[in-house]
């Protein structure tokens, strides 16, 4: 039987790698990938606790809502990124500095 701690360490590793991507990368699409990794790490922690500690399906239900939020966020963020690319011809987050419509 795999102990609970090992699942949590995988989840913490995904969280930290996603955080690293969000901090270091400058491409907006790559930052979006980092956010997806963070959300997946949180989901693994939720399912692990739901299996090992609470014994109910509440954690799994919460993960379903996390997936829904992730889909919405990805769709809207990619639409915004495409618009930024149309206006600035780049998706580098250091070069898109003005908020002019």
């Amino acid at each position, binding site marked *: 039987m*795999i*102990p*609970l701690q090992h699942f949590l360490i*995988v989840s913490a590793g995904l969280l*930290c790698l996603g955080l690293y*991507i969000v901090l*270091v990368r400058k491409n907006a699409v790559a930052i979006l990938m980092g956010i997806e*990794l963070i959300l997946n790490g949180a989901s693994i922690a939720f399912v692990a606790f739901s299996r*090992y500690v609470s014994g109910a399906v509440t954690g799994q239900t919460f993960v379903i809502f996390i*997936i829904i939020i992730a889909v919405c966020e990805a769709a809207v963020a990619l639409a915004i990124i495409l618009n930024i690319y149309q206006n600035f011809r780049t998706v580098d987050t250091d070069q898109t500095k003005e908020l002019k419509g």
Partner: protein
Amino acid sequence: MIFYAVAAIVLGSAVIVALSRNIVYSAFALLLTFFSIAGVYVFLSAEFLAVAQVVIYVGGILVLIIFAVMLTNKVKDVNLSNPSAPAYIAGPLVALIFAGLVWLITSTPWKVALSQDMGTVNDIGNILMGKYMLAFEVAAVLLLGALLGAAYLARPVRSAHGRKNNTLSGSDSTLSDASNGARKERN
């Protein structure tokens, strides 16, 4: 054991996502990460979530991300994606956070009470349609709003005047169609 192989694939491909300089490689490593996270869900006996992970993340979000990569980089300069600016600050900071989390996880005495039968689709459906009914409906409205918002934002260029009016009236008619459909459903 198989679990440790799957966990190694999860973390290894996530490291590739983080460190690869070519963003196309990052996107395809993300595909591997999502698949192996579905494997981790199977080890947690959450089969429904494993299937949802493959269908939604791999089939939906990842295709969107790859589309965005292809549309926002000219094929020629795909290689010069992202010079890592403050990696020497962010790397130690994130390593410190990870060490703290691992210390927290290993030193806490978790009250583990392993349940035998759980995670069937039946249970999830019951709880979703019973206790969490309101959140479920709010999520449905959120998805509709995100769909309309994304379609509005990613409209074609608004420079040509006649074209702008065309797309606007088109989106208006689809909007009223959708709300009519929703009203019919409710009745």
